[in-house]
């Protein structure tokens, strides 16, 4: 249970996930923010107006998947690091995740990484496809990685090998 472990249930996750047809069209935001807290930068940072928190800033965010262009700006502005992008448009076998990643050193493109689930357990391997660190991201870089499609709902984050 989220409030006891920090791990949301599968139902909670699926409820905020875009439909597979939308995922297959290209990058789209998934906001895993399930608790009422006073916060709304996701809403006002989105130029497409695709995220709505509303007048009561304690509401949980709602993503309009059709308006969302998958630009990734909200990933770097969400203080809870709760938003990621998923993209199933590139291949029938794999999906690409984009996650905010604030650990140094940053991974490099082509690097093989462990992919973890929401409990931090390694579930598979993936490959880093892009690392973005624009000045406007204000020290919250975005790492994209590719994993087998069967892990669409289980994969959440990456873990690098300790050297």
């Amino acid at each position, binding site marked *: 249970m*989220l*409030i*006891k*472990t*920090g*791990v*949301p249930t599968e139902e909670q996750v699926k409820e905020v996930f875009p439909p597979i047809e939308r995922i297959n069209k290209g990058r789209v935001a998934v906001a*895993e*923010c*399930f*608790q*009422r*807290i*006073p*916060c*709304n*930068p996701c809403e*006002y*940072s989105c130029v497409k107006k695709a995220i709505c928190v509303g007048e*009561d*800033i*304690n509401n949980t965010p709602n993503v309009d998947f059709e308006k969302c262009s998958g630009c990734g700006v909200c990933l770097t*502005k*969400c*203080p*809870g*690091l*709760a938003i990621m992008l998923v993209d199933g448009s590139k291949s029938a076998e794999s999906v690409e995740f984009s996650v905010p990643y*604030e*650990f*140094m050193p940053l991974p490099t493109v082509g690097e093989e990484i462990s992919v*973890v*689930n*929401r*409990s*931090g357990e390694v579930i598979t391997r993936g490959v880093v496809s892009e690392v973005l660190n624009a000045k406007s991201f*204000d*020290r*919250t870089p975005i790492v994209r990685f590719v994993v087998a499609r069967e892990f669409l709902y289980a994969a*959440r*984050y990456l*873990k690098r090998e300790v050297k």
Partner: protein
Amino acid sequence: MRETEVLIIGGGPAGLCAAVSALESGASVTILERNRRLGGQLVKQTHMFFGSKEQYASFRGIDIPAILLEKLEKYGDKLRVETDCTALGIYEDGVVTALFGEERYVKYLPKAIVVATGASEKALAFENNDLPGIYGAGAVQTLMNVYGVKPGNKVLMVGAGNIGLIVSYQLMQAGVEVVAVLDAAPKIGGYCVHASKIRRAGVPILVSHTVTRALGDKTLEGAIVCEMDEKFNVIEGTEKRYDCDVMCISVGLTPLTELLGMAGCEMKYVPELSGIVPARNKAYMTSRDGIFVAGDVSGIEEASAAMVEGYLAGLHCAAYAGYKSENFAQKVEDLEGQLAKLRGGPSGAHILRGIQKNVKED
């Protein structure tokens, strides 16, 4: 004796915002801050903040003091900032004494005072809790993020409130292993998004658990952790040993109210506000005329609320000193609206209950 119209004690977010609105209203202001730097808790908070645009949400705490200081710059001589300067007492005649550095004492006679001294960390009682290696979470955060010192290699975090969760994350960013985050309560006290982000990075969060004993001869080597039942009793036979060289205690903050108690302000124990707090009215004035409060000193909350309270206390305090701001009523209404929005959720409801107990109607 130095004269100033408004004297602000504490240069954290609440104090700085009080200075902004008192100056805007036309008063001359002096800020006393016991640290060498202004910013209070913000100077160690490398994470992005919650809240809304007006309170600089999604900015990092460490970047917010500069934004506030920029607002203060234009007031030139109307503002004096004294750092490395601790207010020691507020006396019956309204005189405030302050210690500059180690041995120079200075007296102030202000027309009005805002006390914004913030809070201090609570301790936890268990066997061997004085072993070197056991710190308050705020101390560890200061070591890491202000001084760049790695506190150790393996940390056990006691307390799963926002501070425990955030400091755990920052320890991991500094390359320190966090072996677990414990909390005696049956649920995570901090925001779930913070918990989720450290959990997926591999840190177990154990609710209904506590530390009963620290192990080690000269320094910390490990800890005994136990499960607890709903009544917070340790469950026999659940002892587990964790190896660690640092233990962070993050079991809450308590308002730093000594100056107010000594000044004779009426004090009240309000659990929702995390301890003994000064009774105040809606204008942020305590039971002593001319002494105002804002921020964590009048109830532990967040920097976002501390800033808005600071702006409000600054307006009221300046008005008391004879400088009622233009559009006073509208500014107050706007700021009170911001506070109401921030406090519109479950954690805010808790705070509001406390405020209701503590704030006098007139």
